[in-house]
């Protein structure tokens, strides 16, 4: 990642940890304008939306991250973990089990 993107990602993480989700999301959007194909940033945005309780967006963003993740198995597992959580919350047990399998690296 470019230093600018790294700085923004770090800032977004701080914002997220202090509960400033809207700020964290805005910061990640700034980073994505610089590196729109950076799967890690999409994953962070998915995580922020998950913690905000915006399940659908979290799931969509995690899927977007997966589509760009290429050879980053850990990132993909993290995305599947987000997707699994959302599926379980929405009562899609079968889908959640499948996502959990992939989150576990299966």
């Amino acid at each position, binding site marked *: 990642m470019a230093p600018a993107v790294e700085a923004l990602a770090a800032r977004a993480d701080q914002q997220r940890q202090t509960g400033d989700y809207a700020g964290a999301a805005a910061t990640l*959007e700034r980073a994505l304008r610089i590196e729109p194909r950076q799967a890690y940033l999409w994953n962070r945005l998915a995580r922020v*939306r998950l913690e905000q309780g915006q399940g*659908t*967006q979290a799931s969509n963003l995690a899927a*977007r991250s997966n*589509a760009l993740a290429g050879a980053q198995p850990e990132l993909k597992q993290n995305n599947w973990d987000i997707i699994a959580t959302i599926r379980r919350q929405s009562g899609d047990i079968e889908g959640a089990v499948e996502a959990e399998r992939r989150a576990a690296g299966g």
Partner: protein
Amino acid sequence: MPKQIKRHPRPARRRRPPKEGIGFVGFAVRALVLVVLGAGLAAGLYGIHLDKVVRAKFEGKRWALPARVYARPLEIYTGRSLSVAELEGELGRLGYRDDPQLARPGTYHIQGERAAIRTRAFRYWDGYEPERYLSVDLSGGMVRDVADGGDATPLALVRLDPALIASIYPTHNEDRVLLRREQLPPRLVKTLLAVEDRKFYQHHGVDPKGILRAAYENLRAGRTVQGASTLTQQLVKNFYLTQERTLERKLNEAYMAVLLDRRYDKDEILTAYANEVYLGQDGNRAIHGFGLASRFYFKRDIDELDIPQTAMLVGILKGPSELNPFRKPERVTERRNLVIDLMAHHRIISKAEAEQAKQAPLGVVEGGARPSGEYPAFIQLVRRQLRRDYREEDLRSEGLRIFTTLDPLTQAHVEAAVRARLPKLDRTRRLPAGTLETAAVVTSVAQGEVLAVVGGRDPEYAGFNRALDAVRPIGSLIKPVIYLKALSQPQRYSLVTPIQDKPVNLRVAGVMWRPKNYDHSVHGTVPLYRALVKSYNLATVNLGLDLGVSEVAAFLRDLGAVRDIDAVPAMLLGSVSLPPVEVAQAYQTIAAGGFRAPLRAIREVLDASGRPLNRYPLAVESVVPAEAAYLTQWAMRRVVTQGTATWLNKRLPSGLTVAGKTGTTNDMRDSWFAGFSGDKVVVSWVGRDDNKPMGLSGSTGALRVWGDIMASLDTQPLDAGAPDGVVASGACGQRVPYIDGYAGSACGGGGGRSSAPAVAAQAGAGAAAPADPVVAQDAGRAAAPPPRSRQERKDRTQQREVSPFLSDFYGN
């Protein structure tokens, strides 16, 4: 040290001034008071009424503040593409001034390829950008390095303040830059009081001696020659909308001034006056208040004004219509110098300063405090997005601050491309200059942010916005939608699935429909991808009929078309009409690997105090599998390398991989190109407003505009990397990718047929012939059945207010 004007703020002005004040006034007023008292209850009620009016005016919505619209802020970071010219352009839009000393915020100096900037502080809703000294190395059109101008600490990222691109004015076209009391420069205040109201801090709202003096003078002259209004009275006068001068009105004003003075602090009144006073006119926009006037006349903030400038502002407020510095510089200079003398007389400035100040030119500049007005097409888009969420009156009065996605650098490139290309296109068709019209939209791929909009060949003309409102048949731009629909069913279709390019005879509402390929040839069985690359009509119709016309129509809506689509077979060849902005949405979805991001022109709206009212955050929705989107992109890349858009190979820098599709409609009435690089979607349209044929196909018209735009943008090549689940295969002698787990290696039966004859046939079709197939309906008889067309037109009328922003999944 100039003498201070004595202040007696009187913290508790609780005495009842009417009685005492009137004691100063002559017999006439005393008699009036007696009459009023005599009237008893009625007069009391009237006083209460006036008091209410005063309070309502003063405390209520005293100032309708226009909404301010900003472009995206420029982010400066190592590695971004940014030329010296682009940076200077941006700083110019921000009103930064070249100053080697960097004496104040908002200055810069460029030497060679190194820029020194002293930024302005700006509070964004998500963070504060402090004022900074920057040193930026722009060698070779790229930010090599950005560091603190003082201690050379490298900076990862700096966000400049955003350029003001428009103001949405209150109903009476008032504009204002609101100031607080402490922002009023002492020199301005002293001068104002010296000239207009020397006893401001002493009197009770009216200045009885002044009134008597004025009355005497006016009586002597037989007309009004002198006013004696205090600042308070002048402020009250502004509460009225008319300027009539009657005795009744005068008395009301005086009474209200007294009430105002009783109720409010002198400084509050002074501040209100400074923000309210009428100081000039800019077209139909009234210039109210010193804050705006300072920017309007001098392009400076109020605290940057020098002595002659201060004197001029105070000088003209007596009668801004007559004392117009642009029209009557001599009169205004005379008046200004009178004020300067007064300043010296009251020791606000020294004699020497006064003499020097009187020598200075007026120094007014044209075009100050005016939002550029340069982006009418984009602003229209912004207003439509706003209209969905705000009442018009709030937009005009609440001082909202609207942060948009407009990228002025991108917009400048698009405008330059349009300006240069359209005259050439006119000439190639021997059309009178100005015949052809155009529209272009640029968005980001991943976010769906609208970066630039051009609504016509004169981008500064705020008329018919073709980017949003030219709802025209899209021709072959529909084809990627149909092929994507097919490829998202991998159990049925791969890139090499044999498709029949054979004649179709279809009875539609009692009329035979016999579409044709452009060159009237028939290619037999062809692999699916080639039918798209070569834009074969018959193959596309056969494929579309297999998929189902209504399914294709519904899918076009999934991708981003907003309006209702008439699901007739002719739709498969692009009889469906869309404006460029909706085409951009559909192509954004394809470009982003099937993830639709609703197009946005606004990032957030803040209230006057900077709190977010509405955010329009990045949201995505997967509407088609990434694998299918990738395969479609793969075929669309070949439109450029070997299909109808090969012209781009000469036009674009090598290495800039792009994908797209040409579109041409019946008799060459519409010329389209829509496509994308790795990070930008661009849609361009060329045609005539009278909808007459113009002799340009997608390849010879819109493609040229598109290529010029894409070649000038800061953009990334389309990434050829396939997503998981896609594998390359060796079918048909090419590496044609397919979706893992599904058959895709079988070649189309007729796929062995070389593409060369088809190209030759197209090339041989004559100079006026497009290399791109048109909607192959025979004129008249074989066109889409008339009853449906009428229906479509009706739907279109009903859908006129359709917004591209109807998407319902904006989270926050």
